[in-house]
């Protein structure tokens, strides 16, 4: 099962090797991030393809000691219900206010797309599943870094519980703020990629993405989407509109 899943992305990378050689100019396959003719996005894809070609798939990001835990600023959206915040989502921001007031008892994680059993999970459901706790470094694109302990359910376990199909290529994350993002299957199935509900031994604070945020430890901080409400398993690359990194003018892959 594992081998088959991993062979799928690898095949796309071998296909992508030709593109890398040609400075990934085309990038026109639906399984590649679109460039829209933007030279910067072509450079991003060159980095992505090169990393996937040369770097081992299963390497773990460094994990630290409890004593290494540092102060952590909460930036970007710190409360999705606050309509004054830059990335307020008019469609879902209001709902967050109600969920926050009820300490997320009514919150549900929706999983849909290319899965045999689309469904919803309560916070209690997720906490009953297998859990992983890791002390890792959050590296922000701005240039700062912080170390914190994250506790959550491996994304892989949630995807498997929903019967993820083997031709899945990307996993998308939709937030209660205006952010949406996605990762490929190598990052999605990586053991350190977790849906975190705990931070430093407590429930995830609001500013850090309560009740559930993603942790993608081999990419920069903004891939670790906060305030998750929906996960979509996709066969093609969706650019996720203005809320996605490419639509907002940013690199999609930020392993760097």
């Amino acid at each position, binding site marked *: 099962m594992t081998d088959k899943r991993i062979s799928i992305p690898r095949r796309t990378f071998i296909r992508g090797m030709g593109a890398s050689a040609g400075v990934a100019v085309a990038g026109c396959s639906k399984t590649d991030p679109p460039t829209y003719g933007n030279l910067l996005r072509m450079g*991003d894809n060159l980095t992505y393809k090169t990393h996937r070609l040369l770097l081992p798939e299963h390497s773990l990001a460094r994990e630290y000691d409890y004593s290494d835990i540092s102060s952590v600023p909460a930036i970007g959206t710190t409360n999705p219900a606050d309509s004054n915040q830059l990335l307020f989502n008019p469609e879902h921001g209001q709902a967050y206010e109600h969920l926050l007031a009820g300490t997320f008892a009514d919150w549900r994680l929706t999983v849909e797309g290319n899965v045999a059993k689309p469904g919803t999970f309560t916070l209690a459901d997720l906490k009953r599943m297998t859990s992983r706790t890791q002390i890792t470094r959050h590296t922000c694109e701005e240039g700062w870094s912080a170390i914190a302990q994250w506790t959550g359910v491996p994304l892989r376990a949630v995807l498997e519980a929903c019967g993820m199909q083997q031709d899945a290529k990307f996993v998308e994350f939709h937030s209660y703020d205006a952010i949406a993002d996605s990762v490929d299957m190598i990052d999605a199935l990586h053991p350190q990629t977790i849906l975190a509900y705990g931070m430093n031994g407590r429930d995830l604070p609001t500013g850090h993405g309560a009740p559930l945020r993603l942790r993608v430890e081999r990419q920069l901080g903004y891939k670790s989407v906060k305030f998750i409400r929906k996960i979509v398993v996709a066969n093609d690359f969706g650019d996720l509109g203005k809320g996605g990194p490419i639509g907002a003018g940013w690199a999609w892959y930020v392993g760097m």
Partner: protein
Amino acid sequence: MAEVAVPSNDIDAPADSDGHLRWVRVCHWIVVAGFFTLAVSGIFILMVYPRLHWGEVGNDLMPSILDLPISGNHRPDEYGTTTQFSATAGGPVSANRNYEIFNQNGWARSLHFLAAWLLVATGVIYVTAGLISGHVRRDLLPRIKELAPGAMWRDFKAHLRTQSKAALGGPPYGLLQKLIYFIVIFVALPLMVITGLSMAPAITAPFPILLDVFGGYQSARTIHFFCFAALLLFVIAHVVMVVMTGFWKQVRAMTLGK
């Protein structure tokens, strides 16, 4: 710095130079474009978080070793209430940032890495060609006996008094000239690449030794900055020397050959 020796009148200068090799000239101007792009995009990136730290971590809620006055993004007073992570006071805290910052990293970061690809590819071609053709050994590598402190000191003083042999439109280079080019090509630029890679989470996962060598992500970032500052000083000194030895003559020699 006023009196500049005119090359043709300088009796010490070798009679002539064969000029810069064609591939050296092409690589030179690609590196100029790449370095300029990296410098500008790098400064934009640094402006987003203009503070330098040592170790693995550093952020607005922690002390720095140096705050650069290049943007107003660090405003700790405008953070919200701090909350303790642990029961003991003085431990790590969290706080919400309640202000918008200057951030052009969407294009600046991607442009930085695009230019880095260009510079690394050019560097690999340059070093390979330089080793095969003998350019490195013949023109750049200082001889052991030349590296005597006395000889270097004499060349340094000669530069300060602008009495050094006037540069020709190509090799042979002077002692300090060779030494500086050698350090830039084989020490400073590779250090920029390696400290840059040490900031990439996808690279340090399989190669955590990078974090150990430099002392952490923030240390690598700080070294990256100071190495850039040194390279910028080199570029300034280099351009000053070019101007002093005949700007258009030198530009023509580096573009068209002789």
